[in-house]
């Protein structure tokens, strides 16, 4: 069942893309075997920025290890933190106050919007259009400003702690969220004008990087990339956490299986996230923002697994506890790593320019892959 490993013949061109290359959005190293312009095989070589977060976490307490996860997938750091906080809460059976839950969801969705918007710009930039990148940053900056005001940092927030959130929302928070909703409604049609409808963009993405439903499941692809292949895998719907079950939103699915449908799924997901924001921003319940927790957290002996839906897919946090203050073994099932598995399969036989488009549509964040 495994595709046979592409063989290197006389006349094949082997090029190294990365670790420093504009298309890899960071430091992914791909060894590509080319026949002319056609890709025969892609071999990812990882580890350029591997920090061994899993090993580090073994010596950090349950309060401390959360901050390292912000550095994994830095574009959805909030959701990573959320997953870890959920795990600790699950182990200690802490009830999170409703106010904290709503704040968490609001922050998660803002992060998701920011991540998808940045991805939109980066995807267009991969395909050679520079302008959308800057337009994307305009909206993203507004979201980052909200983060800065409430969480204290723009990218690596470390706002979610076991039991709730670190601080209450800023008094300006609701007003600014409403502003950003208004702004997004105004600017999203422009995104479509610039990129979605563009005939060159369509030609570059339609029918490229075909990933069938069976392959998507088999390769463990999750998130928008898998939903574009018709796989229902939104953790927010399947295994709801933090009251996502009470919200009214759609799991965005598409059956195109190609790069363009992956693009469309993310664009619609931005709108779904906005609708979640609209439902919650005026209905933040009063109460505590953090449950009372002990100063030293000790998870009972056993194994715990939580999954959250980050902007890129399913993040699983697997902790084996020996009953101490630090995890015995921790494993982050990062969405980027699994999505990367499918890259070779999707790019075989495509042109080198398509490889860039496919990588863009998978939305790879390299620290998430390398951890």
């Amino acid at each position: 069942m495994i595709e046979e490993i592409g063989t290197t013949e006389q006349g094949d061109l082997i090029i190294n893309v990365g670790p420093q290359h504009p298309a890899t959005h960071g430091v992914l190293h791909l060894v590509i075997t080319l026949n002319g312009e056609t890709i025969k095989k892609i071999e990812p070589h990882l580890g350029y920025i591997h920090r061994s977060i899993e090993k580090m976490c073994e010596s950090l307490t349950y309060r401390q290890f959360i901050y390292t996860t912000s550095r994994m997938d830095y574009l959805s750091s909030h959701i990573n933190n959320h997953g870890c906080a959920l795990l600790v809460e699950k182990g200690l059976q802490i009830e999170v106050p409703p106010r904290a839950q709503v704040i968490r969801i609001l922050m998660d969705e803002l992060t998701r919007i920011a991540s998808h918007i940045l991805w939109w710009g980066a995807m267009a930039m991969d395909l050679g259009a520079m302008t959308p990148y800057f337009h994307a940053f305009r909206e993203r900056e507004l979201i980052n400003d909200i983060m800065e005001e409430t969480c204290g940092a723009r990218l690596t927030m470390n706002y979610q702690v076991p039991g709730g959130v670190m601080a209450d929302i800023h008094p300006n928070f609701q007003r600014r969220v409403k502003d950003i909703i208004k702004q997004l409604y105004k600017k999203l049609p422009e995104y479509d004008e610039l990129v979605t409808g563009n005939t060159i963009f369509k030609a570059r993405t339609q029918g490229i990087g075909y990933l069938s439903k069976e392959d998507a499941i088999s390769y463990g692809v999750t998130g928008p990339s898998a939903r574009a292949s018709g796989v229902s895998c939104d953790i927010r719907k399947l295994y709801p956490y933090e009251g996502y079950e009470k919200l009214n939103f759609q799991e965005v699915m598409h059956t195109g299986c190609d790069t363009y449908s992956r693009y469309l799924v993310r664009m619609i997901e931005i709108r779904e996230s906005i609708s979640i924001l609209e439902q919650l921003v005026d209905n933040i319940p009063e109460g505590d923002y953090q449950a009372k927790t002990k100063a030293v957290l000790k998870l009972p002996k056993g194994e715990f697994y939580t999954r959250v839906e980050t902007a890129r897919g399913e993040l699983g946090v697997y902790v084996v506890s020996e009953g101490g203050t630090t995890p015995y073994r921790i494993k982050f099932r990062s969405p980027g790593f699994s999505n990367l598995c499918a890259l070779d399969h999707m790019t075989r036989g495509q042109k080198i320019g398509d490889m860039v488009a496919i990588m863009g549509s998978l939305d790879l964040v390299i620290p998430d892959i390398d951890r």
Partner: protein
Amino acid sequence: MWSLSKITDIIHSWLTETFNPTWTLIIEMVIVGVGVIGLFAVLGLILVIMERKVSAYMQIRLGPNRVGPKGMMQSMADTVKLLVKEGMTPDGADKFLFNFAPFIAMIVAMLLMAPIAFAKDFQIWDINIGVLYITAISSLNVIAILMAGWSSNNKYSLLGAMRSGAQIVSYELSAGLAILVIVVLTGSLQISDIVAAQANGWWIFKGWLPAWIAFLIFMIAVTAETNRAPFDLSEAESELTGGFHTEYSGMKFALFFLAEYINVFIVCGIGATLFLGGWMPFHIGNWEGFNHVMDYIPSSIWFFGKTFFLIFVIMWFRWTFPRLRIDQLLNLEWKYLLPIGMVNILLVTVIAILKWHF
């Protein structure tokens, strides 16, 4: 309408009186050479700052604004930076070809300057096959790119150069066909004749639909021929990092960079000459007063105005569109531009024979 021919005539007659004919020719060539190089430098500076400003405003940012008033001296600073940078030659490179390629790119760009009419009666060489000369010389550009790509001993460069070869060779056809439309309408290959034929109206207005289509095809084809986005496959930075000039640095890179901008200027100048009347002012039918006012604007301003407008359009393309893929690029040429261009030339021949145009 005043003309620059008086000045050139005075210089020429003074030189012929003072020196013998050989020396006159040599001195005139030196003057022209110095003039062209000066124009190159000025154009390079202007176009670089223009590109940066255009891109900045389209990308809702300010662009360079620190060096000089409103950042106008930025390209000077860039030049100085490139001049003092070490010009490296990779170890495995074919040293002669590697160092020679940027000069070919420059020489080709310089040669192309010759038949362009910058103003009324102000032309370096009014050769009778002007248009043919331009199409012939501009194809030499691909040699420089292939040379640079091959000699760099870099796989990215090689891929970029190969792409560029395929691209330039195919797009020359449609550019040629688009130019041919105007040649058919005018009945001459000489630039001065083509400009003179537009005295009572530019071809884009007089030539009806075929001229419009030809203009569109011309703009697309020359964008591709000068390797500008969305056809910048030979230097596609998200795929091939820098394409054929990946290994170049310092002044050698600057020469490529400059040659690209000069090429853009030249093709836009040709576009302005062929379709927008060159240095001819804008006239409307019988509006005598209006036409008179237009005549007072110097002819060189008309030429440069039109050229810079076309350059702006090409920059506009670049900062709006994503890049095509190599097979789509060739598809566009062979499946769309070339058939349309051929039908167009048939159409225009009929129009020209039946004298349907003005």
